[in-house]
């Protein structure tokens, strides 16, 4: 039977939505083993759980992963395509000489071969890639949804770091607890661009996202808005920011540069609100409103609230 090792971080006492959905996908593909980083309390829906406690240090975490791979000989090693997941995928591929594919949107096993699809060249093309097992794959957050309902087990083997780390965490800043769902996991994204004119005006977008529901909707931005310091860099969607695949993407005052489209071309439906009839985004959208976002967005917030 196929054995799938999933790498995940425990974030403030629980698996992230991304890790949970990855574990579910792993379970569909075969027998699961979890390699957990961070806090090791709690129970997790996997066949077996290895854990490495402590703040993340890429070298120590990679050594731990290598030892789990040596003990378990998995056919497939899956990690979320995040800072930590990509770090460990690269390190493992280098040390074990394994094939590696990052930022995958879809993953199948066909006759013992891994077949993965991902967007390449700035979201303009979809590539299908193949690799023999064992292989290392990082999966884009949001590519899979849901979580496993398998029996949960505690960490059965705690790994210890053989050496002191060279990376020391001085402080950690958690995302605002009152903030909405992560962009990568959001079903609806309300995004603002240069025409927002300032950071304070993003409140209009937050209000609209909250009207949809903070568990499904999040606020993003284009590069110019993040560059201007109106919103944190983590909110940027595009080639130098995040790649997102919501069911609905509402672009407010964003011109539609190819660098921005690269980050959201996978959205199912796109609504563009812009007062510039020549905004190129109108040519890459399902619905368009040529109008003042400062009037249309609050009106839409009210109309959505009225449906609840």
């Amino acid at each position: 039977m196929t054995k799938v090792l999933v790498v995940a971080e425990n974030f403030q006492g629980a698996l992230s939505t991304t890790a949970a959905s990855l574990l579910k996908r792993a379970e569909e593909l075969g027998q699961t083993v979890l390699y957990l980083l961070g806090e090791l309390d709690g129970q997790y829906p996997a066949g077996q759980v290895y854990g490495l406690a402590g703040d993340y240090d890429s070298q120590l975490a990679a050594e731990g992963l290598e030892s789990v791979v040596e003990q378990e000989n998995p056919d497939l090693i899956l990690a979320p395509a995040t800072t930590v997941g990509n770090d460990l995928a690269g390190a493992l591929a280098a040390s074990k000489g394994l094939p590696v594919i990052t930022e995958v949107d879809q993953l199948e096993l066909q006759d013992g071969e891994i077949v993965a699809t991902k967007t390449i060249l700035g979201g303009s093309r979809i590539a299908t890639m193949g690799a023999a097992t064992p292989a290392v794959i990082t999966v884009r957050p949001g590519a899979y949804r849901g979580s496993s309902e398998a029996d949960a087990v505690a960490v059965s083997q705690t790994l210890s770091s053989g050496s002191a780390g060279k990376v020391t965490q001085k402080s950690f800043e958690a995302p605002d607890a009152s903030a909405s769902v992560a962009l990568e996991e959001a079903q609806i994204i309300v995004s603002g661009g240069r025409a927002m004119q300032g950071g304070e005006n993003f409140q209009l977008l937050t209000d609209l996202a909250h009207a949809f529901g903070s568990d499904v909707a999040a606020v993003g931005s284009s590069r110019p808005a993040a560059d201007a310091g109106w919103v944190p860099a983590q909110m940027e969607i595009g080639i130098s920011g995040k790649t997102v695949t919501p069911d609905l993407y509402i672009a407010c005052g964003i011109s539609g540069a190819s660098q921005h489209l690269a980050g959201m071309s996978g959205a199912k439906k796109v609504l563009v609100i812009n007062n510039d009839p020549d905004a190129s985004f109108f040519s890459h959208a399902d619905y368009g409103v040529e109008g003042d976002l400062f009037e249309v967005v609050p009106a839409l917030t009210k109309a959505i609230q009225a449906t609840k």
Partner: protein
Amino acid sequence: MEILVLLKQVPDELSDVTVSSDLKVEKGSAKLILDPVGKNALELAVSLKEAHGGSVQAVCVGPASSKTILKEAVSVGADKGVQVVDEAFDGSDPIATAQAVAKVAQKLGPFDLIVTGVRSYDGGSGLVAPTLARLVGLPQVTAANQLVSSTEDSLELVQLLEKGQRTVEVTLPAVVSVDEYINKPRYASVKTKLAANKAKFEALSAADLGLEPVSNQVVVKDVSAVPARQSAEMISGGSADEIAQKIVSVLQNDGLI
């Protein structure tokens, strides 16, 4: 501080890039530029050199034409540049690139810091820095978004994680990858551009580095265009409230709300 910065030449407009029938990416008519995030890596390297002394060497793995990005590096403060040019690296495979840079680091080093962009504009695998760190056995901080402080033997950086961000101190030597928010890259002056134009760069082959030809373990089976969206169906007429009502109906029809 001895610093190696890894740069990449990328197409300015990815829409100008074509994919041939045998599934090779062809840069064709695309204008080739220094990877935008590479400018941030370079800026970090040069500013650390200015603060702590030492030198900055730039390396790129790619076709002979990529010499232009080394000139650009020198024009904004890199001391030297070296090219790795070999057909073996034509596919821009991130693992092969990391292997080559690891050898370059060995040959030209030791370095206190190896810095690069978190992911390239065109390839975007995000794999080169972590693979390289493992190959050279150094600690790494990937996706650094802010330099808080630096000494001759450590850097304090803000790193973006899946959720939240953290401040870390990394002991040098180390590998660091940066995003486009870490700094504002400086511009070259006419004078430094002219001077950089005269710079000569060593070109190394895979054999010079003692590298075996790399067998690509990942096979591209198919490349297709992302289905293009048509022009938007415009929703118009009436007041903002009326337009909002029409939007709600459309979204309800699509089952989105």
